[in-house]
């Protein structure tokens, strides 16, 4: 029996008249690689925000690693996010005046203690050992996103959350990033990636389709998993 890392029970997010998420039920096992797809406005970002402890549901429970996070206050959400979640975004959101390695160290600083050697190692894992001292402006889009991945992983999170992480990348860099996901999956990291891109969606073990805030498809891709 695989361990449940995440469970959404009857989760809704309501903005006035609008149900951005409507009665979502979802269970994710530890080590799963999940992709979330769906048209624009279907609630994907809303869902990632709730899972990533940056937002809370209007209705329902979110159980992350055995803890119900749906009613926590901002400070404890911050603490849980810091300890359990690694985040990557479509925009890379690196701090422009800090070097690649310093950007990684910022995440260490707010988690525990900056450790330059460890940060350099994380950069090496995403193939950026040589670029550690560069500022974001001196890196390509793909390289910047890899710095973000190194930063997301530096505190060994249980879940890596990405909101369209390849949305701003060309095909070659998309390939590099997907390869990194693959390796992380082998290391046992739970991966949840929102994407528009079918190629990125199809490499996951499981694909969730969101439409108008509802799950309209839950596709098991384990048959093709590892073969694409």
């Amino acid at each position, binding site marked *: 029996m695989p361990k449940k890392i995440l469970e959404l029970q009857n989760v809704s997010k309501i903005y006035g008249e609008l149900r951005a998420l409507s009665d979502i039920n979802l269970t994710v096992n530890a080590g799963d690689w999940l992709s979330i797809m769906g048209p624009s406005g279907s609630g994907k970002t809303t869902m990632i925000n709730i899972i990533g402890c*940056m*937002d809370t549901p209007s209705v329902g429970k979110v159980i992350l690693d055995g803890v119900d996070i749906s009613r926590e206050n*901002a400070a404890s959400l*911050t603490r849980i996010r810091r300890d359990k979640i690694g985040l990557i975004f479509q925009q890379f*959101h690196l701090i*422009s*005046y800090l070097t690649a390695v310093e950007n990684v160290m910022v995440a260490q600083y707010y988690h525990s203690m900056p450790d330059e050697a460890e940060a350099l190692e994380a950069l090496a894992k995403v193939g950026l050992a040589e670029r550690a001292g560069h500022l974001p402006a001196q890196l390509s889009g793909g390289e910047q996103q890899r710095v973000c991945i190194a930063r997301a992983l530096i505190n060994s999170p249980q879940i890596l959350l990405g909101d369209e992480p390849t949305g701003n990348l060309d095909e070659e860099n998309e390939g590099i990033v997907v390869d990194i996901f693959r390796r992380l999956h082998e290391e046992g990291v739970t991966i949840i990636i929102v994407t528009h891109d079918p190629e990125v969606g199809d490499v996951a073990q499981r694909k969730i389709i969101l439409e108008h805030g509802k799950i309209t498809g839950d596709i098991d891709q384990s048959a093709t998993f590892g073969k694409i």
Partner: protein
Amino acid sequence: MFWRMITKTLIRQKGKMLMIAFTVVLGVSLSTAMMNVMLGVGDKVNRELKVYGANITVRHKDAALMSDLYGQGVSDKFLHEDDVLKLKSIFWGFNILDFAPMLEGHAELAGAGDVSLLGTWPEKHAVLPTGEDLHTGLKSLRTWWEIDGEWLNEDENNSVMMGHLLASRNNIHVGDNITLAGKSFHVKAIFNDGGNSDEKILMTLPALQEIMNLPGKVSTIEVSALTTPDNDLARKAAQDPRSLSPEEYETWYCTAYVSAICHQIQEVIRDGVAKPVRQVAESEGTILNKTTLLMILITILSSIGSALAISNLITASVIERSQELGLLKALGAYNWHIALLVLVEVMLTGLAGGVVGYFLGIGFAQIIGQTVFGSYIEIARMVILIVAVILFFVTLFGSIPAIRYLMALKPTEVLHGK
């Protein structure tokens, strides 16, 4: 990491930070200048007030006690006129600018009844035992009097000057003759003092001594002296000079404190008690209070101005960086982490501006001292502390809107920007 982030943001935001620093420089330099002038101005105003009459009076010790208890009154104890010139022989004789003996009396003015009289040295020329030429008298102590006519000369014993209230009530004019205690006097002048002398008649000391039959007697001596503002030592000495150690006594005696000068006056005037004049001390006080109030007002206004300006600049800077700061929150920074980051940035900038502003302010204080008071203004160390505290709170209050904005900032609002 924290300091690395701080220094790098400071460098990157140098434009805004320079603006903040500049605002602080303006505010701090103004406050520093104002406070130093305010604190240093005491003896300047004191010196200005020197020209405004006497600042020490000498009375007979029993009369002094009586007048302390019951207010100014006529007493039967007197000082000796022949002691008066000895004032110039005391250690701080050189600081004694002017003086005049005063005798109070009263007599019948024909057609008006009993009136108060003042006998004095209107002017006094003498050669001191030291060979020094002395020129003093009441004329030098009443510079503000408005005179219709002419001041009495040194030995014009048959003329008087009359207070304008008394004169107008009795329809007396310059050039008239009056009969006082059965003796005829020429009214040489009518004066306006603005005080209770306006009801009195002023005459030479010998003339009044004759009327009152008090040869060689004097009720009070008015003295105008240049003094150093009192300090703790002076206050201790004023209580009781015997409480000082020999070294302290020496220092005190050889400094021109009012108390030291009074002490020395008492050494030469038999039975005399010398006291600072309260009236002058008080008017000095009110002038100082008004200046102080003005300076405090300017300091407060400039602080508020700085706080508002700083507040705008910080808020702008924080809004501009909201993505970056939202990211830090997403990465696990608590609200206080971010608030601290911004506060330290602002405080460091404020500190830099404060140091520059402080020294600039000292410069301003000296310029004000030179142009307004014509002298160097002593720098009060206390000002550093006061300015630092004000600056701290100004930057703190100035940061409040920005901090509130930060607290409310949600990472989701800034990170998923399309």
